[in-house]
């Protein structure tokens, strides 16, 4: 199908690549999660990974984060081969990964704490991001006192507060309510626009992927490779309120659904 938005080569060539994953394979014992996956993430843009559950999205993100070793292949971040975690990347965990014994404030500041930032400075910063994600007033609460969506926002604030160049977000909005989710999607668009950061974003929602992404990578079921890269380009400047009504937006949603529905059965 010859869609205007699926032009690729010329645009990728002109933008700088922040993260590139080359020929990545990953086996967990007998389970082959990723096979020979190659994907590039342009700097300052948001790339979504979209694919059926269990296809290896979290695995890919963790390999890029340096938390998992690929069985084969390599990852480069800003031209340097990844050998482990680094301050250039921050991770938002699918299961939040909050310290149950620490307050919201300490949890959000924990990334900065590990990086040796002084207490008063990191708490000021954390308080700002806590307010940004809409949790002002909950600084002293503990994770078990929060709802799932609120916990997820704590994890989000923690990743944002370390000011990393590359944000690896594993289904960061999956547990928040629809209203907050829409607000976060808009905030995310603003963040991508205003800061020259690179976002890797895993989601199960086709609409969400199309709404926030500069580039969408569709993954096949295990063993995963990239089956298709879609670059929505026409509606990004039309303002957040008009995107969901834009014909191109709707077309892409349909197109992705058409290619993914084969795997749902």
């Amino acid at each position, binding site marked *: 199908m010859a869609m205007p938005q699926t032009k690729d080569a010329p645009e990728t060539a002109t933008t700088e690549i922040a993260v590139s994953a080359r020929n990545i394979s990953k086996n967990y014992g007998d389970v082959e999660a990723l096979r020979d996956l190659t994907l590039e993430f342009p700097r300052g843009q948001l790339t979504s990974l979209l694919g059926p559950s269990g296809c290896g999205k979290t695995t890919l993100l963790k390999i890029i984060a340096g938390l998992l070793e690929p069985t084969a292949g390599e990852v480069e971040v800003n031209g340097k081969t990844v050998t482990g975690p680094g301050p250039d990347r921050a991770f938002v965990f699918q299961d939040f990964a909050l310290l149950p014994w620490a307050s919201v404030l300490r949890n959000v500041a924990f990334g900065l704490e590990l*990086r040796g930032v002084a207490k008063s400075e990191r708490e000021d910063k954390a308080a700002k991001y806590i307010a940004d994600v809409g949790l002002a007033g909950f600084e002293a609460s503990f994770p078990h006192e929060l709802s799932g969506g609120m916990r997820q926002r704590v994890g989000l604030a923690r990743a944002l507060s370390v000011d990393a160049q590359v944000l690896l977000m594993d289904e960061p909005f999956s547990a928040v309510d629809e209203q907050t989710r829409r607000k976060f999607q808009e905030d995310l668009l603003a963040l991508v626009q205003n800061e020259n950061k690179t976002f890797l974003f895993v989601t199960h929602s086709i609409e969400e992927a199309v709404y926030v992404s500069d580039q969408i990578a569709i993954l096949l079921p295990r063993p995963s490779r990239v089956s298709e890269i879609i670059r929505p380009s026409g509606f990004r400047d039309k303002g957040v309120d008009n995107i969901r009504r834009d014909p191109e937006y709707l077309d892409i949603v349909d197109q992705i659904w058409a290619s993914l529905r084969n795997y749902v059965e």
Partner: protein
Amino acid sequence: MKLFGYRLPGMSSLIVWGLLWELVGQTGLTFFVPPLSEVLVTLFEVIGTPAFQKALSETAIAFFSGVFFAIVIGIPTGILMGKSRLLDELLLPWVNIFLSAPLTALVPVLMVLFGFGMKSIIITTTLFAIWIIILNSRAGVMQINRSLIEMARSFGASPMDAFFKIYVWAALPEILGGVRIGIIRAVKGVIIGQLLISIVGFGALFELYSANFLMAHFWAVLIVLFAMAFMISEIFAYLERRVSYYAAKR
């Protein structure tokens, strides 16, 4: 518990047992059980005496040193075993053997190795307490949510950071439980050490009183010992409850 509509305070059953003791004592059934009232009177007499004070301080020093070593060696060992498969394979059989071994039988060996002094008593105390502390710390680490460790790594935690900011805290409920049981076992260890190795401290008092059939004295010292062990273990039980809010949600 409620009785005739009144709410009874905790441990009211002790009153019942105390009364029973008093009754049995008053009947003069056996010299072995003097009335509780007599024991209590003796207790207050004994507590002030220099002999008792000396015994108390000797026992306390041995006990706290023994527990101290059990904790500072036991917790890191348990945590490292929980972290490292290799270390675990290597050490776990030994820990299990010593946990169930009749340690009293080892005391003569300790005397040969470390002499008849305080050192052997402290080592005996440590040996009684340490194994359960190791096992519990290990169990605490083994159930840590992998995500927390990945999170710490992803934000650049050093191994030291991970140890003190993640492992210790995540395993804390189990660690405290282990220390509590370890302390109870340490009481056993210190008295056995004092009886078998060199007759000092409370061990010496027990020896003295029972040899001279001073049963009221014997029971009085035992009550003091029980009360102290109970208090320390209650402190840890309290700490355990303090962290229980997250024990279920790690």
